[in-house]
């Protein structure tokens, strides 16, 4: 009922709130982008409304919310376990104290960075939506939009179809801004990203990453595919995804929520001893790939899903080899870690970092295992 008779400006006013609230169809989104390309003076308006939509709204400060929960808890206390009881069940109480205290330390810094973050998000978003991406990309077709995160940084991308992508440090996401959303929604990923895909049965969303391809309709999942790491992991939180591996398109792996598919990364695949411990599924007896279906890891003490914890700014590791953890720390802290004593690579660590500096993190790790470290410029030597 709405279209041909309206002026572009009227169409803009109709489409803008649809886009901001994620209620826009892909065709409409393309139409909106076109209007903005043709009427540059509407961009400021679009950006201001986008910023307004992003504002965090609070009636009560968090202290009052916590008090409200206490009243609620006391009112129905017979239906809950008391803290003391919880403690007996499994030390949950202790862990929770640590968790909340860590959070309090963490908050002010978070707040400080919020201002910068808001601006950054707006910039990236508007950049992707409103400008011809010519200037972003080199040595490739002008239609390719790229978002690249350096070590120590993360970013959030709003795709033109309303899907959202959180990009972890040292990662890159590319998509063709002309073709995206025409018949398919295709992106290329190198590194780690968390996807929250807008539902659209007509236009499947495809993530191409190294040797595999993930096809989804609308869902939330995490992909970890750093070229330098030995495994590629896809963890599903909600919905369903279908994974194919490029060199054998006949096999399809369908994940259910709470499952994760681990594929060894052929590029660098040395036969590492840890890989022998995973369950090899029936589908790939004779193949060089090593594929395992696992459960998404759940950190019972921190109450957090390990695979997606980074989105909440937490570096979580569970009996992880120092050599693997070091790679993640390099990206997380934007530093380089070199092992001068190679035996230390095999040490295993379990823990969680939030606001710790690299120094504090290493100090904490030294409590668990004996090693020494030396920091020279941006390089940390492990001895």
């Amino acid at each position, binding site marked *: 009922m709405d279209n041909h008779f309206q002026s572009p400006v009227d169409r803009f006013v109709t489409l803008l709130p649809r886009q901001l609230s994620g209620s826009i169809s892909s065709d409409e989104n393309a139409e909106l982008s076109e209007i903005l390309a043709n009427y540059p003076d509407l961009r400021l308006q679009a950006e201001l409304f986008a910023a307004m939509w992003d504002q965090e*709204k609070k009636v009560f400060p968090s202290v009052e919310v916590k008090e409200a929960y206490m*009243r609620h808890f006391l009112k129905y206390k017979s239906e*809950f376990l008391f803290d003391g009881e919880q403690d007996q069940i499994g030390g949950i109480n202790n862990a929770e104290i640590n968790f909340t205290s860590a959070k309090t330390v963490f908050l002010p810094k978070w707040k400080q960075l919020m201002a910068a*973050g*808001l601006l950054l998000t707006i910039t990236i978003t508007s950049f992707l939506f409103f400008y011809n991406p010519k200037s972003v990309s080199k040595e490739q077709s002008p239609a390719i939009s790229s978002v690249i995160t350096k070590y120590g940084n993360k970013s959030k991308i709003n795709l033109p179809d309303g899907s*959202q992508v959180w990009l972890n440090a040292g990662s890159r996401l590319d998509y063709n801004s002309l073709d995206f959303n025409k018949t398919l929604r295709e992106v290329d990923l190198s590194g780690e990203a968390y996807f*929250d895909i807008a539902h659209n049965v007509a236009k499947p969303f495809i993530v191409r990453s190294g040797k595999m391809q993930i096809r989804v309709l609308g869902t*939330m999942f995490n992909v970890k595919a750093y070229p330098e790491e030995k495994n590629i992991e896809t963890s599903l939180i909600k919905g369903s995804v279908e994974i194919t591996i490029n060199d054998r398109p006949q096999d399809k792996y369908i994940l259910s929520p709470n499952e994760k598919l681990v594929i060894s990364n052929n590029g660098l695949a040395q036969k590492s001893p840890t890989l022998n411990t995973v369950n090899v599924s029936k589908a790939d007896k004779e193949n060089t790939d090593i594929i395992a279906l696992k459960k998404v890891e759940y950190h019972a003490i921190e109450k957090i899903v390990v695979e997606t914890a980074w*989105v909440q700014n937490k570096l979580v590791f569970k009996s992880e080899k120092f050599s693997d953890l070091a790679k993640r720390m390099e990206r997380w802290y934007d530093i380089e870690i070199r092992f001068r004593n190679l035996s230390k690579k095999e040490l295993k660590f379990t823990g969680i970092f939030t606001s710790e500096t690299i120094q504090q993190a290493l100090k904490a790790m030294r409590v668990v295992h004996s090693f020494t470290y030396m920091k020279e410029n941006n390089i940390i030597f492990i001895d």
Partner: protein
Amino acid sequence: MIVLKPQITIAELQLRIFHNEQTAYKELFELFYNKLFRLAFIITKSRELSEEIVSDVFIGIWRRREHVLEINNLRLYLYISVKNTSLNYLAQLTKTGVVCLEELDFEPLQPFSNPEEILVTKEMNQRLNDAIQNLPPRCRIIFKLVKEDGLSYNEAAELLNLSRSTIDNQLVLAIKKLTKALFYSFSTSKNKS
């Protein structure tokens, strides 16, 4: 720095509540308390009642936690439950029966809490604020639900028992009025094209 989109947390929280985790339940409560309280308050105009309503709705989730994964859209479920419970309370109190949510009056929140962060001037923010206050009631509550609460058109339509096209029209109206407030010096000439 990344601000977590609530839905991610909701899907995870739902799973954890299903696994009897009281802390996940607490997180869910704290995540939605502000918004649900406000919805209840818009309807009941009573702080005590609003708190009780939100409390009622939440304990229902905890009591039936073994079924919590069957809820498709937990956020919408919470909003609808709070709306219905509030209207029931109100009907009992006033004995008048039907109350229409979209005709209720309320005060919207500030459009920008920190306008300087995004280079919006004080006057612009004030004009915007006045414009939101002066939206017709139905338009205002739809704008509130879609913008402040982040509901989709379909969710807002379902919550208010309105058609999607009504949501559409009302938001067009809101955007037009707010645009006029923001750029009032030159927007009028542009609207007639």
